[in-house]
């Protein structure tokens, strides 16, 4: 077989070996060949045709990115109408943050309880910029992102 042929097969195996989200399945012989390629250059054998499919490690997304995504999603939701009121959120068993709790128990209407308070909260500003933001209260989604 040509060199191009074995190179092609090598890349197919390498891609499969380093693919994400696949089930682990790696014949030992082929695995050895891949690993020997690490120190001994490219393999020239044709047996690289068989698929090696293994799980690659999932990288944890930066908390700042998660925070920005959350902010963007809630903003998008709020743009198309009121959010679910804080009282309804609480009824569904989810924790509210200390500020949301205050709004939730206040004698105000549904409209007020459905506003996007995260938008004006300093916790958002901190969490979108800092990897370890100083946010010290429970029920805040941004704290959840900080903790992975």
């Amino acid at each position: 077989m040509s060199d191009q042929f074995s190179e092609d097969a090598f890349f197919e195996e390498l891609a499969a070996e380093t693919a994400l989200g696949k089930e682990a399945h790696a014949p030992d012989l082929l695995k050895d060949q891949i690993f020997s390629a690490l120190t001994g250059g490219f393999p020239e054998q044709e047996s690289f045709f068989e698929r090696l499919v293994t799980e690659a490690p999932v990288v944890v997304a930066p908390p700042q990115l998660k925070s920005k995504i959350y902010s963007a999603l809630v903003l998008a939701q709020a743009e198309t109408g009121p959010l679910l009121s804080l009282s309804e959120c609480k009824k569904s068993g989810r924790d509210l943050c200390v500020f949301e709790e205050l709004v939730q128990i206040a004698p105000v209407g549904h409209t007020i309880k459905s506003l996007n308070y995260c938008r004006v909260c300093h916790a958002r500003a901190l969490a979108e910029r800092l990897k370890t933001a100083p946010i010290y209260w429970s029920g805040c989604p941004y704290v959840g992102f900080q903790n992975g």
Partner: protein
Amino acid sequence: MVTVSRSIETDEPDLISAVLRKDRKATAEFVSRYADKIYSYVRYRLIPREDMVDDLVQEVFLEGLGGLKDFRGDSKLEEWLLGIARHKVGDYYRSRLREPLALDESAESSLPELAIESQIDELLDRERLQEKTSLVLKSLPEIYSLVLLWRYWEKKNAQEMAAETGKSVKAIERTLARARAEFKRRWSDV
């Protein structure tokens, strides 16, 4: 001390319906649950353009949110979101490789010097393999990384790549050959 927020782990259909009802806490769980997987995928596929990863991941979630009402549950939500990510990455490959000089030989004249630390002598496990592959792909000119990622990681053949970029099959194959050769050279050097 940071107080950890208590969150309930919701079933996928319940989570979807809560997000559609605009439950902000469910939206947070939606992000927490899927961000790592989507981020990992996009980051690896855009190795030569790390600066674009965050924006693209955010776009995936926004598009996912917009399309959630049409999600039929035929696959897992994670797979569905990965599908959106795959399209976004494909769009980037296409647009980049469509550029007039993308596959031009002049790309070779701009090959950067090897910027790889030679600290990877004992790459003997899978994690190291992943690391070495990332390192080599990252060190390649962007076009070379993209054609290799598209061809082998996204499993597109040269004909499909040519059709989607408006280039000739020969031009794609030529670039692939150069990219493989450069990858090989750097692989041996690190």
